């Protein structure tokens, strides 16, 4: 016998129900995800941290280059583990697998569906986003208590990027169109976030542009967690929260247009 379904918005039972579907599916592919999440930062740290650090770059400010890249790589892991699964996963579930038709035939509305999907992807990204930091510790990064906040920073940022991914998936006509988004949006954000080189050495206009990049704020917060917070980190965090809320609502709006005739 089923319990009575309520009419109110964002019912926890609906959200956890949708997330339970994601968990059931994730159990079938978690090994591959974990493998790439561990190996990728190792490769990047070897290539950039050790390779570049040993040949061209001594360090950045007071930091060794491997510490600089290791902390910055959190942002890379977060965008890759939130925007991409969100874009491709949403598109495939909606257009190829008809999964959302099945879910929306149950007592779940689009807002709950999107919220559950965004939360699940962000929880994963919050978890896997910490892997570069852990890997960097094996390359010499000292653990700090502030690093315990990194999953929260990664989670909030991932809400924004998974929302952006869902909104994109609801907007594009074909899966190939993701190439435009990857080239024009994801790659520039990933490169100009202060991960591989410091933003404050760029021209003034580029520094202003960097402030519009959510990943830059995440990188600054992670470095704050690793090397000491500053008052400006409150602003960084506030911008990430605003980005997360805006992208979540954008995803709900775009998905409602896409899923309800």
């Amino acid at each position, binding site marked *: *016998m*089923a*319990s*009575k*379904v*309520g*009419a109110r918005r964002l019912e926890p*039972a*609906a959200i*956890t*129900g*949708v997330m*339970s*579907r994601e968990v*059931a*599916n994730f*159990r*079938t*592919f978690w090994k591959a995800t974990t493998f790439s999440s561990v190996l990728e930062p190792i490769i990047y740290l070897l290539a950039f941290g050790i390779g570049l650090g040993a040949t061209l770059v001594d360090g950045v400010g007071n930091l060794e280059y491997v510490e600089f890249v290791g902390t910055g790589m959190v942002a890379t892991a977060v965008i890759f583990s939130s925007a991409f699964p969100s874009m491709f996963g949403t598109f495939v579930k909606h257009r190829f*697998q*008809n*999964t959302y*038709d*099945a*879910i*929306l*035939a*149950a*007592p*779940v*509305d689009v807002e709950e569906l999107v919220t559950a999907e965004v939360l699940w992807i962000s929880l994963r990204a919050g978890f896997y986003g910490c892997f570069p930091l852990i890997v960097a510790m094996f390359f010499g990064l000292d653990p700090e208590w502030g690093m315990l906040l990194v999953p929260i920073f990664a989670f909030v940022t991932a809400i924004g990027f998974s929302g952006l991914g869902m909104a994109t998936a609801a907007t594009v006509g074909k899966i190939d169109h993701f190439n435009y988004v990857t080239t024009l949006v994801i790659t520039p954000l990933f490169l100009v976030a202060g991960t591989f080189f410091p933003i404050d050495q760029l021209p003034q206009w580029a520094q202003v542009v960097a402030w519009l990049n959510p990943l830059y704020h995440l990188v600054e917060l992670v470095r704050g967690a690793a090397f000491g917070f500053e008052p400006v980190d409150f602003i960084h965090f506030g911008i990430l929260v605003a980005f997360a809320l805006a992208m979540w609502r954008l995803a709900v709006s775009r998905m409602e247009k896409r*899923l*309800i*005739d």
Partner: protein
Amino acid sequence: MKGVRKSFGDITAVDGLDLDVPAGICLGLLGPNGAGKSTSMRLLTGQAIADEGEITVLGHTLPAEAKIARGEMGVVPQLDNLDVDVTVEDNLAVYARLYRVKDVGAAVDRTLQIARLTDRRKDAVDKLSGGMRRRLLLARGLVHEPRLVLLDEPTVGLDPQIRTELWSLIDNLRGGGSTILMCTHYIEEAQRLADEVAVMTQGKIISRGRPADLIREHAGVETAEIYGPPDKLAEARAKAEAQGLRVRPAGPAIAVVGSERATDGAVPDDAVVRAASLEDVFVLLTGEEAE
């Protein structure tokens, strides 16, 4: 549904549809492809919003109370949208949670029995045969013991053996007193499973009743199928139509509907005379060839 209209651009999918489904019956919504059946189903689940008209499902007004209504109905879709990498029992458990079922384990056990898949519960869906997957899809729509079941083309694209299996399951469901609204474009499916049939074309219902009543009203008692070369068929058609009988194509033949009223050799001696059928009604009313 009262006076429901739904358009997509210039195309009117549902055009002033009036439809009520009495409790405890299986109503077959029979129509050709593009008649507006699937759109009607989406309107009933709140996945499409009507441009005009009123929709009430189980006492809940749509679209405002669509979520509550969906909690009391089960939907079996036309397309297989199971999670193929996940086990059979997890597929059911996920939907039991979505439907707020209190005892998920018991609901899964019950629906596995309905689908006759208890011994395959630990298998991933992609290890199941096509028939098993369709049974699982049906079971998923019943996991919360819904008051109303919507079946959208439940056996479309299946081979005859699997179709018969599904019919047996749906028949059991009907025998258990469930209220069922079933969209189909298969005449035989409607005739075998539906207590009442509503014939739908171009977004509206053009006739409704018990299959036997529809046949009597629109097709009479007998239909004569006449085979032969084109000139023979043309001559037979002309004679039958001259007597006011309705003639329809039937593959390589023509069918004279209500042939018991034919006189003066309008039906040749070598015609094959059979009982009038729902197929005759469908073709006469919709102008479409039956499947």
